[in-house]
C-alpha cells in the first residue's frame, strides 16, 4: 500500500499551483509580521492566501502551528474544507467573539477558535486514528529544514532548542499528502531548502510540496523542481541553480510572473 491517493491529491494541487491567480498579486492585507514586508516575494498574508487557494475542495486538512495556521482565514467557505486539529476537533472555522470565547474550544496551537456547522469533538486516540489511518487528506506543516529527498526536520536543534515532535511525525506518516509551508531562509539568512537535512528528522521522504514566500517547490530526490515563483521573484533568487531547477514546468522565472499578472 504505497499511499496511492497522495499522488492524486498532489496532482490536483499541481494544476492549481501552476496557475497562480491574479489575487496572489492583488492581496493587499498587511502582513502579520513586520519584517516580512521587507522581504522579496509573498507577504505572510499573501502566502497564506496562495496556499488556501491551492487546497482542493472538500479536503480534510491539518494545519500546523505557526504560519500554516494562518491559511484557515483565507479558505473559501464554498470549498467546504474541513480543518482537523489534532487536539480533538474536526471543523475549525474562524475565531470567537468576546461573547463566544471558550477556554475549552482551542486548536492544536492552543489558540481560541470557533467551529463550523458539522464540526465534531473527540478524544486524542480517535483524533490520531484520523491521521494515522489515512483519513486526513493533507497536512500543512512548518519546517526548519527540508531536503531534496523530501525529508523534513522541524522539532529539535540538538543542545539548543527542543520543541518536541508533537503530532508532526504522525502527520507526515499518516496524512495522504504533506506540504511544508515556511520561510525560505532561517534568521541567519541560510536557505532552509537543502540537499540534505542536518537536524533530527520528523520524517524521511515524506514531503510532496514546499511553499515559501518565493514560490512552490517539489523535492525530486536529486533537486528541487521549481513549480512556480511568487510575483517579482526570479530563479536566481531561490538558491543554488544545481539545487533548484525549473524542469518541465516553464523555461524562466519571468514567465511565472507574467502568468501571475494575467487577468
Amino acid at each position: 500500500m504505497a499511499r496511492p491517493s497522495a499522488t492524486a491529491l498532489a496532482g490536483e494541487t499541481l494544476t492549481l499551483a501552476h496557475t497562480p491567480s491574479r489575487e496572489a498579486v492583488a492581496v493587499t492585507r498587511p502582513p502579520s509580521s513586520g519584517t516580512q514586508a521587507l522581504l522579496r516575494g509573498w507577504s505572510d498574508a499573501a502566502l497564506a492566501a496562495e496556499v488556501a487557494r491551492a487546497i482542493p475542495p472538500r479536503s480534510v486538512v491539518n494545519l500546523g502551528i505557526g504560519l500554516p495556521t494562518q491559511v484557515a482565514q483565507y479558505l473559501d467557505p464554498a470549498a467546504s474544507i474541513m480543518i482537523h486539529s489534532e487536539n480533538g476537533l474536526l471543523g475549525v472555522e474562524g475565531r470567537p467573539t468576546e461573547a463566544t470565547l471558550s477556554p475549552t474550544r482551542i486548536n492544536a496551537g492552543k489558540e481560541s477558535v470557533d467551529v463550523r456547522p458539522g464540526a465534531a469533538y473527540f478524544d486524542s486516540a480517535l483524533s490520531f486514528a484520523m491521521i494515522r489511518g489515512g483519513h486526513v487528506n493533507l497536512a500543512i506543516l512548518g519546517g526548519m529544514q527540508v531536503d531534496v529527498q523530501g525529508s523534513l526536520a522541524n522539532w529539535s536543534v540538538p543542545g539548543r532548542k527542543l520543541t518536541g515532535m508533537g503530532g508532526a511525525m504522525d502527520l507526515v506518516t499518516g496524512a495522504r499528502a504533506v506540504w511544508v509551508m515556511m520561510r525560505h531562509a532561517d534568521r541567519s539568512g541560510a536557505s532552509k531548502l537543502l540537499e540534505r537535512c542536518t537536524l533530527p528528522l520528523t520524517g524521511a521522504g515524506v514531503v510532496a510540496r514546499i511553499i515559501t514566500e518565493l514560490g512552490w517547490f517539489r523535492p525530486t530526490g536529486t533537486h528541487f523542481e521549481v513549480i512556480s515563483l511568487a510575483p517579482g521573484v526570479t530563479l536566481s533568487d531561490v538558491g543554488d541553480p544545481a539545487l533548484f531547477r525549473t524542469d518541465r514546468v516553464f523555461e524562466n522565472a519571468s514567465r511565472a510572473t507574467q502568468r501571475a499578472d494575467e487577468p
Partner: protein
Amino acid sequence: MAVEHEAAEAPGGSRGQPVEGHGAPSGSGPFLKVFEGAAQALADLHSGAVVMSGGFGLCGIPECSIAELLRRGVRDLTLISNNIGNRGKGLAQLLKSGQVRHAICSYVGGNPDLEAQFFAGELTLELVPQGTFAERIRAGGAGIRAFYTPTGVGTVAAEGKEVRAFDRPCLLETGLRADFALVKAQRGDAYGNLWFKESARNFSPLMATAATVTIAEVEELVPLGALPAEDIHCPGIFVQRIYQGSHYENAIEYPILRSP
C-alpha cells in the same frame, strides 16, 4: 445542573469496604467513589509514583489535583502528559518545585521550564510522537501489550525499537500504564461517568483506562442518571475516585478574537 451535595462525606472510608483494598482511601456514595476534595482523593499518592495527567496545553488539565500535588510536595514523580504544563502553569508548577524526575510527553514548545530542566539534566525526558503517545495509553488501558506503527520510522524515535516490515516498515511500541491518572471533566456522577466539554476531552478518557487508580475532578458533580447514558464520554468503570473541584482558572494560552 443540580449538585449532589449529600455525596460529600467524611474522608477515610468510614463506611463500606475500600474500593481498592490494601488500606486505600474509600469515598462515599452508592459506589464509594465520591470524595470531599483533592486532599482526600489523593491521600495515598506517594513520592515516586507514575502519574498520568489529562490536558492539551492548559485545556482540560486537572487543576485541583495538580495543586494538591504541589501542596503535598510528593517528589520523584514520573509524569505522563502531552505537554507537562505550559507557560509556567499546570504541571509546569511541579517542574519549578523540583518534584518531577522523569517526564513522558510529545510536545515541549511553550514550556520553557521543561526545556530548561531537560538541557540542565535535572530530569529525564522521553519524547513520544503524539499519536503513538495516545495509542500507547489506549493500548495500556485495553490490555494490549504492544503494537506496530509506521510513525517515527527513520527518525530518532525509532532508536532501540524493533522494526518489522508489513506494507511498510513499522516500529514496535509498547502500552503505557500508570499508578494514578488525574483527569478533569465538566460533569461527572457518583459512579464516575464523565462528560467533557468541547476539546477539553483530549487524552483524559484514554488515561482513565490506563491507571491503577483514576481520580477524576469535575466542575459539576451531578446526580446519577443526570448524564444521558448515550452521551457519556468515559464510563465510570474506569474511574475509582471522583470529587467536585472549585476555583477553576480555565486559562486560554492564546485567546484570539474575531477581527471586528
